[in-house]
């Protein structure tokens, strides 16, 4: 892998950029691999990369039905934070943030991780109680998070309307300064490039159609639109499509797949310096390096694999945006789209072994898994390599749904994303 650098760009400029190599190859699938990862999203690619870099397992195929990074990774609003309530979550997301901090250098790919701060607004007494509970738990878990007054919030985010006369005045906010955003595409591409360089096969346009198992029930491989590919270890990292894939192996999942929409405005000069989210009025917003306001909407109320949803969901969010930031009412929506989010009953992910020998699953990230990408890939690689969960994902099991040991970020009134 030839190194990326300002110097390399200058050198290539001199020969009109003829010298760049492919960032990843498009190999024909081999007949078998040590590990198959299903799904070339951020989490799948990261898993493959850490299998290679941490565990020395490079005979790995990542199978992708479409184009790599084209799932939720390629359509998310890229909010990164770790101020979750429960110890398990804090452990997972904090682990991820640590990895984010060095990721561009580690991958030699600028993922534009920008710690501009994530501010979560409170609008009523209950919001404040919930925020305080998070703040105290975060502090004792070593997670950065602090309380700011409406005035401090305004200073941190000038477009914010803190007038007392609005319908739901801002009563303060929880601010995680280490939180921020990253460039979604770059994350997928960076992992793909480095993983490919270490020998991982990324096979696109290759849809897994069924999962093969021997008489003992153990996994032996998968049938794809590009033929049968064997492996004793298969990791499913298919987000919205997890139920479909696990079904192929006879495992039923506690998941539902909903459309989640987002939209961007036309690009403007820097106006919005951070990330702001509000659970009570349902909106979250940031400004990308290209200048668009990136705005996340909610899920539609029915399950769907269509990557589209109703306009009323997006407008509901824009109402909240214009209420909190009245100066944006004359901005224009440039494009809207949807993804398919896999939602668990307790809104926490599943990263675990399954009842089927050799089958591993990483799913249930729902509306908020982009932030976890490096951490998730890192511990999932560990789980596959050692057939044993890492202590960070030990709690994110499938069993919790029959013993009831849920990690209920939803019930604890945590917010999405």
């Amino acid at each position, binding site marked *: 892998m030839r190194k990326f650098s300002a110097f390399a760009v200058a050198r290539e400029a001199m020969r009109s950029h003829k010298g760049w190599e492919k960032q990843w190859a498009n190999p024909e699938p081999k007949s078998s691999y040590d590990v198959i990862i299903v799904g070339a999203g951020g989490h799948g690619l990261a898993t493959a990369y850490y299998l290679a870099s941490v565990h020395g397992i490079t005979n790995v195929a990542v199978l992708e039905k479409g184009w790599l990074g084209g799932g939720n990774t390629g359509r998310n609003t890229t909010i990164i934070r770790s101020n979750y309530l429960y110890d398990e979550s804090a452990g997972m997301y904090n682990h991820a943030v640590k990895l984010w901090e060095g990721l561009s250098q580690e991958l030699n790919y600028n993922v534009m991780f920008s710690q501009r701060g994530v501010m979560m607004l409170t609008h009523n007494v209950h919001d404040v109680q919930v925020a305080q509970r998070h703040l105290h738990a975060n502090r004792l878990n070593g997670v950065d998070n602090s309380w700011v007054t409406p005035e401090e919030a305004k200073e941190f985010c000038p477009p914010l309307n803190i007038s007392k006369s609005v319908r739901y005045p801002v009563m303060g906010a929880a601010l995680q300064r280490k939180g921020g955003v990253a460039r979604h595409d770059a994350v997928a591409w960076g992992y793909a490039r480095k993983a490919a360089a270490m020998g991982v096969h990324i096979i696109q346009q290759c849809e897994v159609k069924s999962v093969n198992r021997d008489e003992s029930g153990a996994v032996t491989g998968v049938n794809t639109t590009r033929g049968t590919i064997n492996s004793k270890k298969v990791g499913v990292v298919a987000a919205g499509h997890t139920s479909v894939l696990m079904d192929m192996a006879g495992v039923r*999942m506690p998941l539902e797949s909903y459309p989640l929409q987002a939209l961007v405005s036309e690009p403007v000069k820097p106006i919005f310096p951070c990330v702001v989210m509000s659970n009570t009025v349902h909106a979250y917003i940031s400004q990308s390096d290209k200048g668009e306001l990136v705005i996340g909407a909610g899920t539609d109320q*029915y399950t769907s694999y269509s990557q*589209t949803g109703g306009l009323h969901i997006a407008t509901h969010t824009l109402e909240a945006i214009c209420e909190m930031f009245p100066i944006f009412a004359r901005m224009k929506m440039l494009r809207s789209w949807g993804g398919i989010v896999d939602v668990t009953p307790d809104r926490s992910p599943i990263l675990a072994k399954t009842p089927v020998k050799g089958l591993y699953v990483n799913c249930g990230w729902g509306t908020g898994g982009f932030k976890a990408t490096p951490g998730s890939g890192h511990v999932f690689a560990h789980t596959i390599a050692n057939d044993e969960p890492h202590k960070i994902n030990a709690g994110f099991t499938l069993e919790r749904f029959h013993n009831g040991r849920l990690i209920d970020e939803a019930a604890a009134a945590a917010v999405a994303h």
Partner: protein
Amino acid sequence: MLLIYCPYCEKELPEIEFHGEGEAHIERPANMADLSDEDFEKFFFIRENEKGIVFERWRHLHGCGRFFNAARHSVSDKFIKTYKAGEPKPKLTKKEIEAVLPPAKSTPANEPIWTIEKEGEKK
């Protein structure tokens, strides 16, 4: 915004009058008290989450208030039919299913072309 036929109001009405109520045909076990943990998990947590024909519950919350069921394709988001609560899961005809199959989008990256066989595979 979907258009949903309410089998009680006997009319196609806008989605915002309705409330999605999740997967249909999950009966509450009569012996709830002594259900096994596995069976409770199946009942309360496990979902079909079908990519294809889904059977789901709706409530005409801001209308007649009735709960009812629907058969819908979860990729085209088109309804095959809606039917009253308590009615058995309908057997869908080939014709009914074909009518709601989504065509592939033209980009090769996107969904494969849907065929009746694909539905057939599903138990």
